[in-house]
């Protein structure tokens, strides 16, 4: 039996190493993901014969050279990744693989969550992750027609408030999930607090913190990429399938509300994908969810959006920000930004 030696890289400067990793990935039809924090390689006789990458808590780019497949190297390789992640304090891990390789990772303690047949499967390293999460949701379950909004609210604007008010009128209960990934200007804690305060007058609205299962780095990696050109259709589909197959049934959500998106390419593509993956009968056996787009509210002939607020904050045009956010968000901004009378 071959025992490879393993080596961990955090950023690779050596072009020869980089090329051999790329070649290895290509031999199993994968590309090197540019966002990896760490790459672990397995070496036999100075040749790189296996590799696996870690992007925060997501394992990607796992490959074993065809000559070495079937020799349990995947187990040793994943074992190295698990230990590395554990050392970094990352315990809840996700993994993307092709559906035909799911059995290899099942043997490493990963369990499938959602799958695009023939394309990609998302797995997690716990048998009870998503089911425990759904159990916590079920405790919030209400009767009647339920709808949902998923928002990053970075920060919560009058636009978000308008969307919430309009949506709340159309259903008995409205759940607002606040994206919990900390990859935004405002921390997830602050975003959650501002949403909660901002909709406190709406008695049929329940604000819930998001999770690793709603627009997170795991379910929708490209959402958080700086350059928004790369729109990964398959990631969006995985994110939406998780919503349709787990989250919506846990809370009997039958409607999902969303603001129309004139600017952000990623958000717009996500809105379009929503119609496809939540509404089509043939995309999943789970009940369909009606997607309702609500036109954005405008101020001074331009839509109110969080990105507009952020850009005004950067330019220190605080009075203009004031006009675009509800009082609770304004109070927070006033407190945390050095605002002089303008």
């Amino acid at each position, binding site marked *: 039996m071959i025992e490879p030696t393993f080596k961990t890289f955090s950023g690779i400067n050596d072009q020869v190493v980089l090329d051999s990793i790329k070649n290895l990935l290509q031999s199993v039809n994968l590309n090197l993901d540019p966002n990896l924090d760490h790459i672990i390689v397995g070496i036999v006789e100075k040749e790189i014969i296996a590799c696996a990458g870690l992007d925060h808590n997501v394992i990607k780019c796992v490959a074993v050279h065809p000559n070495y497949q079937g020799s349990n190297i995947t*187990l*040793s390789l994943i074992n190295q990744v698990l230990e590395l992640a554990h050392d970094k304090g990352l315990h809840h891990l996700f993994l993307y693989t092709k559906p035909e390789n799911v059995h290899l990772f099942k043997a490493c303690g990963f369990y499938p969550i959602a799958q695009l047949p023939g394309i990609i499967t998302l797995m997690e390293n*716990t048998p009870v992750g998503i089911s425990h999460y759904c159990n916590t949701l079920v405790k919030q379950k209400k009767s009647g027609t339920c709808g949902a909004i998923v928002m990053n609210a970075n920060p919560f604007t009058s636009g978000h408030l308008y969307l919430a008010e309009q949506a709340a009128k159309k259903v008995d209960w409205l759940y607002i999930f606040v994206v919990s990934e900390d990859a935004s200007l405002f921390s997830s804690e602050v975003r959650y607090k501002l949403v909660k305060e901002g909709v406190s007058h709406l008695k049929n609205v329940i604000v819930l913190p998001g999770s690793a299962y709603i627009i997170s780095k795991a379910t929708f990696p490209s959402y958080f990429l700086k350059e928004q050109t790369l729109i990964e259709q398959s990631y969006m589909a995985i994110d939406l399938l998780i919503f349709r197959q787990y989250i919506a049934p846990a809370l009997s959500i039958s409607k999902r509300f969303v603001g129309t998106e004139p600017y952000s390419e990623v958000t717009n593509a996500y809105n379009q994908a929503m119609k496809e993956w939540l509404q089509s009968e043939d995309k999943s056996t789970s009940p369909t969810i009606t997607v309702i787009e609500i036109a954005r509210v405008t101020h001074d002939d331009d839509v109110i959006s969080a990105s507009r607020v952020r850009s005004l904050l950067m330019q220190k045009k605080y009075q203009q920000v004031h006009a675009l956010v509800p009082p609770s968000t304004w109070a927070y901004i006033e407190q945390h930004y050095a605002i002089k009378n303008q």
Partner: protein
Amino acid sequence: MKITQTALAGTLESSDLLVKIEPSEQLEIVINSDVNKQFGKQIRHVVESTLASLNVNNGLIIIDDKGALDCVITARIQSAVLRASKDKAQWSELL
């Protein structure tokens, strides 16, 4: 012993097992074994009695077994529990 942090012990190598312990209100044990059909009952018995001898009453215990012997299972669980708890180990209890 009270489980207060996430801990790992063991590996996914053949004849070993990987034990992962996470804090949780209740005690929940999930066993995933290559030899579940033949030895599932025995493995669960070893796991439960080891946890009982360490007075573990909470935590999510996830086990990925690759055909480990009982003594290996016991040792791996003991290590994982010691790593997952801030309580001092009663070494005499572990023998």
